[in-house]
């Protein structure tokens, strides 16, 4: 794949990352994980656990309070100059709502990074953009404006744009959010196909268990209580665990109380008044 610094280094390596906003106390402290080449890696966690914040640190939108992020062996924050942008060109990102440019049609959206960063001819850029739209199943929609296509199609087009510079790594922020189960399953299949056929590594931020079980090879689960990673591994294996309770609760869609064995008996309720779990 093009745009990678070092073929031997893992696509992502995060060392002792502390995630925080401003002067506020950190959301996550000293977390470590690694995304291997060709794997679909899940960054999981409940609402407010900091998974999107981790993504913003890893893709270079927010400078970590502490720790280092390596993309294909290169320290993302090694200097404040153009190095960061060089690193950013090694990966593609699909944002939660697609983030397609509303004033451009799909072909222009996908072509834009190629026009900016390559010396390919105009015909080759158009061919490459059509190719990528075809790969995500959007042949025939090249001249559609983003507002005219469905949410699922917008996410597919966003993946095509993330593929524009042939990165070896793609990040997906909540790919299933706002999609119906059929569209979501189609998108999962597309991610699996791209990972298999192009050998891409994917970093997927999600809390959709259906998607996780369907596509993710390995995952970390973030917990805001311990401000770190509570479990790491194959999500299907993690789902069989009963300890720690947070892991069991997350993968089995239970309340934390029930996972701790403090849950209400059938027909009864132990929930304290005014407290919503």
């Amino acid at each position: 794949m093009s745009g990678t610094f070092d073929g031997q280094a893992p696509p992502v390596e995060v060392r002792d990352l502390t995630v925080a906003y401003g002067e506020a106390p950190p959301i996550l402290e000293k977390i470590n994980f690694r995304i291997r080449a060709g794997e679909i890696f899940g960054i999981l966690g409940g609402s407010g656990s900091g998974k999107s914040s981790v993504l913003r640190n890893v893709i270079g939108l927010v400078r970590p309070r502490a720790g280092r992020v390596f993309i294909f062996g290169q320290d993302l924050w090694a200097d404040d100059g153009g190095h960061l942008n060089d690193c950013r060109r090694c990966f593609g990102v699909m944002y939660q709502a697609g983030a397609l440019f509303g004033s451009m049609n799909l072909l222009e959206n996908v072509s834009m990074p190629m026009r900016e960063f390559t010396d390919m001819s105009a015909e080759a850029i158009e061919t490459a953009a059509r190719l990528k739209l075809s790969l995500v199943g959007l042949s025939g929609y090249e001249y559609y404006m983003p507002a005219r296509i469905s949410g699922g199609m917008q996410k597919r087009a966003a993946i095509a744009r993330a593929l524009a510079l042939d990165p070896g790594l793609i990040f997906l922020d909540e790919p299933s959010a706002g999609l119906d189960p059929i569209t979501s399953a189609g998108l999962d299949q597309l991610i699996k196909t791209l990972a298999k056929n192009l050998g891409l590594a994917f970093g997927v931020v999600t809390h959709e268990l259906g998607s996780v079980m369907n596509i993710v090879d390995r995952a970390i689960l973030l917990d805001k209580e311990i401000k770190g990673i509570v479990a790491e591994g194959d999500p299907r294996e993690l789902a069989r665990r009963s300890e720690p309770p947070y892991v069991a609760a997350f993968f089995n869609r239970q309340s934390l109380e029930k996972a701790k064995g403090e849950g209400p008996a059938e027909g009864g309720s132990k929930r304290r008044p005014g407290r919503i779990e």
Partner: protein
Amino acid sequence: MKDGEGFNLKLEKGRGGLTVHLSGPLTVDVRRAAWEDFPASDGQGQSLLVNLSGLSALDLNGSAQLLSAGAKSGQAGFKVEYGQAPQDLTAIFELAREALERAAAEPPAPVGFFEELGRKIKETQKDLVVLITFAGELMAELLRGFRRPSQIRWNSVLSVAEIAGVNAAPIVSLVSFLVGLIIAFQSAMALSQFGMTIYVADMVGIAVIRELGPLIAAIVLAGRSGSAFSAELGAMKAAEEVDAITTMGLSPVRELALPRVLASILTTPLITMIACFAGVFGGGLVLTAMDFSLLIYWQRAINFVSPATFYICVGKSFLFGLVVAAIGCQRGLAAGDGPGAVGQATTSGVVSNIVAIAVLDSLLAVLFYVWNI
């Protein structure tokens, strides 16, 4: 031979046709100049074999460059054939070829001129229906409000009146003052040649009170308050707050638009009066600088303004206040979904408001002329 980041292209002429040997990494980094020797003219049915066996790396953009060059050669009359790529690169090349074949099988449908025109006409028609519906609903709510004033949310009206109306007074005064000053200065330059400088007072009085005061107040309010209404209601629409009001069985026009429109109707005449005063005062400053008494200027300016002119000024300001708020609110409530919709609604609100004010003022000028007022 071309060299682009280690990529090489070598053209070989044989009896049966041409052969292009590609070697090195064919990736996104290959520059367009590397393809200059790729045959692209006078094919005349010759065969063109592309030998891929020397490639060391291949990605989708590299494949796209090759297939694009091959397609160009095909159009120039060559029979293009691709040789076998190294084993580890075959899959990606075949993937790219298949994707492009699928794309060719489903050609894109560019939006034609007439389709676009039709869509625009339909959108305009829909827009017009929405606008008329809103105007009707607003009038009904206004009448209902006059019949039962206790049902109007006066707290909201006063709050909007302060933010959108009273707070606009300084900027309206400044603009009007400067316009009055400029008019007086320019006309004094001309009239002083005939010894008629004092008539500047009559001119500024009638121009500012009859036309410019209401106009300046309306345009500044359109840019300041009308746009704020569009943005506020557009953001509420995007956040589904308007839907929430509707599903509660309430009317968004009554709850959201009516307080803003009433506040605007009530404050615009006052703002307009301030604008007129500031404009006339601006003219007075010029004449004072020319050694005329401010008191004489003021008397002439005010005496020249008939009661009818004053009523026209007040009437216009009521109308402009209604139009500015109504259009601002309507654009906000008609905003689409998504983050860009608020910006579009705001722009649309300001543009529509300024056009509406200009058209309305012109129509009124013609009507008053015909009625000899």
